[in-house]
């Protein structure tokens, strides 16, 4: 759009180029000549400004050592910006010329005779025509230079700006992360994840090899108050009572066995002695299996 505006403006301006007296010049009034002069004055001023900018841009481009890529199918953003800027400048010049023309048309009848009388009009027209021609010639270069300038400088400016801005702090200060997170549908994200595929891609052996399990275990153990845990467990268990009961259980059974065995042996010995002595024992030793025999 900028380019079309620029082309339109240029076409309009070329039609009124001064210094070429042809059919169009016939029948012109002094006021028309003055209008042409003013238009060319504005064009020269704009051209001077653009030429200065082009000169600076050319310096930047050569310093950076990069030629513009003319083969691009789509003009880059920098080119569009540069073209738009130039088009805007020409459009502005055209508008300014229109305003000036209307003003001049009003004042021309009163001032044209002064210019015609002094002969300054023709000299001025030649000078402006020459400058205008030169400006027309440098327009493409100017456009390229502006594009290269913008292409190189804009990223630098953006990078420099980003370097100077603490985006993290800015986000923390300006963005309500809780609200953002609250709006995130985590379930939907989780549903889109193919966890099986992720798991298949994991080399668990490599992960385990990289883990220093000994150090991890040592760290965990260091953080645990094992003495306190042991004390708590012992307090809960009432270990002395547990040992006493279990010991009593084992020894009690052993003692019972010993006692039963001794009682049986007593009975056997008594029976043998009685048999040898051929007597009947009145205070017989009862057997464990026959407690009813006790007197």
């Amino acid at each position, binding site marked *: 759009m900028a380019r079309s505006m620029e082309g339109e403006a240029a076409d309009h301006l070329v039609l009124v180029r001064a210094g070429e007296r042809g059919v169009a010049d016939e029948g012109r009034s002094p006021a028309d000549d003055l209008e042409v002069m003013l238009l060319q004055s504005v064009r020269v001023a704009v051209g001077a400004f653009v030429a200065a900018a082009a000169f600076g841009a050319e310096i930047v481009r050569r310093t950076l050592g990069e030629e513009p890529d003319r083969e691009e199918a789509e003009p880059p953003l920098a080119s569009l910006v540069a073209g738009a800027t130039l088009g805007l400048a020409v459009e502005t010049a055209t508008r300014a010329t229109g305003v000036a023309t209307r003003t001049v048309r009003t004042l021309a009848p009163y001032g044209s005779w002064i210019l015609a009388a002094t002969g300054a009009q023709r000299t001025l027209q030649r000078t402006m025509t020459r400058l205008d021609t030169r400006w027309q010639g440098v327009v493409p270069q100017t456009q390229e230079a502006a594009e290269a300038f913008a292409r190189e400088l804009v990223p630098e400016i953006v990078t420099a700006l980003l370097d100077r801005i603490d985006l993290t702090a800015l986000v923390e200060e300006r963005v309500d992360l809780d609200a953002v997170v609250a709006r995130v549908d985590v379930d939907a994200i989780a549903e889109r994840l193919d966890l099986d595929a992720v798991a298949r891609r994991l080399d668990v052996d490599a992960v385990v090899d990289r883990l220093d399990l000994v150090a991890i275990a040592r760290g965990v153990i260091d953080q645990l108050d094992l003495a306190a845990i042991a004390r708590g467990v012992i307090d809960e268990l*009432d270990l002395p*009572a547990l040992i006493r*009961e279990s010991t*009593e259980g084992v020894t*009690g059974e052993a*003692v*019972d066995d*010993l*006692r*039963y065995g*001794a*009682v049986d*042996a*007593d*009975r056997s*010995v*008594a029976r043998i*002695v009685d048999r040898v*002595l051929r*007597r009947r*024992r*009145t*205070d017989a*030793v*009862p*057997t*464990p*299996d*026959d*407690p*009813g*025999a*006790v*007197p």
Partner: protein
Amino acid sequence: MSVALPAAARGFQGSRAGIVSRSVAAVIDLGVAVVAAFVLVLIRSVWTFFSSSGSTLRVVWPTRLGLSTLVWAVLFVYLAWGWARTGKTLGKRVLGLTVVPLGGGGRLPAWVAVGRALLYAVFPVGLLWCAVSGTQRSVQDLLLRTAVVYDWRGRRRPRRAA
């Protein structure tokens, strides 16, 4: 808290104990006396090490007569103390036996306990008479009018309340 006796053992509680039970209890008591005597020897050895400069730490064994006398003395004191206190020594406690006076009362008079211990220390063979005796009594029992009966009660301490 009384501890329930096994059903098979309830019938012969209080009846006279035979030669085997009493002999095993006597052997245990003799072992206790020997161990106690050995501990005394060790204590004396340590005492000697600390009391005399320049000596090394070693077991200072007494002469055979001295050792026998020590074991005999320990056995006498141990038996007398146990019988006078509860009628039970460690050996009798293990076998579930108790020394009781024939006249009743359940507990031996102190002089009887001391006399019985002295007799056993001097003439231990008198224990064998209980195998021959029709009333399961040893020579010491006959002299001091005592008897040894089965008594399994109190064999375990009651559990402490949680």
